């Protein structure tokens, strides 16, 4: 299924190269930005990558309507403003948006439930691309289906644009809890796990043998404070995505820096106390029960 290209002895687009970039982002913070100015604030704060999009999730939620891939001009402006990797979002199943993002030279494509899905049954065949993909998941079965479609990084979906960490915690616990159970499963039980999860057996067997997902596992959706970032890192996330949490806070630059330091020092409450001080107000949050649309339900 892999579709590497070879030129003059150089192979591009291999799984090793695609998953490798995700390895390099571990322990870091990936921040949503809507323009070049925000991208520079993110890079100045120590972000390892930025996610270029037209509106942060909380604005998409407020505005309603159909949310699509961002304007290429805006993505190019952000690419020109920073030296760190630039990611961008395509709608679930919208492989042409993904082709456009690849042509623009973005470093990672997020096939994202935050945008309005373009296909109600199929995700993008991610093996067909040279650019790597990250996909959201609420549980292990979803994560493994995305990996079998070629995703090279998984992130919890959480509930984007709410500033409420509860869904991300649920998804992380769901995924990592099932991984822990599978490591104890005997061969007959592994067949049963594959059926239950609606996931390929070889991936279940690999998890049994290694005790981990085959690709890096990051956390997204609802991170609004340094403590939120440290919480998901302690739960087992390997890096964090912060969407609305930075630029919807009262002092984005200070919040960005604090989240970066909290992600690094996530096990040290003394440092967490220090970096959490004097940040002004975090983004306003939303109760999940009050939402008209839950993005985490998008994806199949």
């Amino acid at each position: 299924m892999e579709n590497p290209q070879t030129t003059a002895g150089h192979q591009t687009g291999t799984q090793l190269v695609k998953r490798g970039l995700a390895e390099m982002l571990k322990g870091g913070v990936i921040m949503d930005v809507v323009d070049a100015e925000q991208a520079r604030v993110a890079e100045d704060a120590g972000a390892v990558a930025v996610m270029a999009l037209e509106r942060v999730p909380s604005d998409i939620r407020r505005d309603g309507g159909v949310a699509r891939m961002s304007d290429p001009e805006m993505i190019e402006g952000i690419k020109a403003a920073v030296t760190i990797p630039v990611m961008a979002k395509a709608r679930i199943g919208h492989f042409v948006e993904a082709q456009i993002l690849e042509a623009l030279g973005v470093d990672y494509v997020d096939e994202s439930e935050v945008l309005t899905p373009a296909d109600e049954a199929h995700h993008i065949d991610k093996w067909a691309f040279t650019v790597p993909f990250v996909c959201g998941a609420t549980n292990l079965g979803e994560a493994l289906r995305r990996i079998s479609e070629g995703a090279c990084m998984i992130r919890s979906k959480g509930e984007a644009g709410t500033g409420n960490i509860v869904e991300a915690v649920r998804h992380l616990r769901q995924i990592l809890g099932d991984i822990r159970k599978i490591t104890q499963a005997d061969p007959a039980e592994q067949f049963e796990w594959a059926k239950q999860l609606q996931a390929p057996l070889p991936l279940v067997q690999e998890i049994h043998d290694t005790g981990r997902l085959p690709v890096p596992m990051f956390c997204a959706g609802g991170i609004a404070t340094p403590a939120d970032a440290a919480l998901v890192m302690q739960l087992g996330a390997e890096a964090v995505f912060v969407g609305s949490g930075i630029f919807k806070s009262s002092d984005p630059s200070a919040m960005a820096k604090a989240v970066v330091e909290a992600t690094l020092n996530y096990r040290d409450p003394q440092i967490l106390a220090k970096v959490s001080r004097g940040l002004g107000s975090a983004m306003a949050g939303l109760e999940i029960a009050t939402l008209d649309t839950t993005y985490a339900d998008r994806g199949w």
Partner: protein
Amino acid sequence: MDVGILALQGAVEPHARSLTRLGARPVEVRTPADLDGVGALVLPGGESTTISMLLERQGLFDPLVERLEAGMPALGTCAGMILLAAEVLDGRADQRCAGAIDLVVRRNAFGRQVDSFETDLDIGAFTESGLDPTPFHAVFIRAPVVDSTGPAVEVLASVDGAPVLCRQGCVIVSSFHPELGDDLRIHQLLINEVT
């Protein structure tokens, strides 16, 4: 033997696996106290701008430079190569380098992620070190290359004429990622400097 891995951000775990397989004990280094306890240091891949910033914020930059000046063996891969070099091109204005190897390095020199690649490298130094001389399968991810080298630098491998593996004394740097694979020969070169 305790070998430190700078663990501020990036691909720490794959290096730990490689070092463990060679019989060394990997130790994550986040503070000056952690650095005091190790006899050699791996600087992993990651985002060099972020790692450089975090080195300053953790109060680790100056102690690191002191240890390197005192002759601590080090292996820097990708971002780690940039951090150990004398100067970086196409980086951020405030990005600091430790100056442990006399190189000028250019960031993201092969292009963006879609240009990241795998290729085989001939590395003559393996023969001198008594290691298997067959080509090394190297993974380059948004990789830097060496723009120019000082007189004390040995170039151990090149891609399209640009040096990608260099050594000066007990400091070894690679543009590529020997930790993303099962081949332990580059890590063995570091271990040889310690023992």
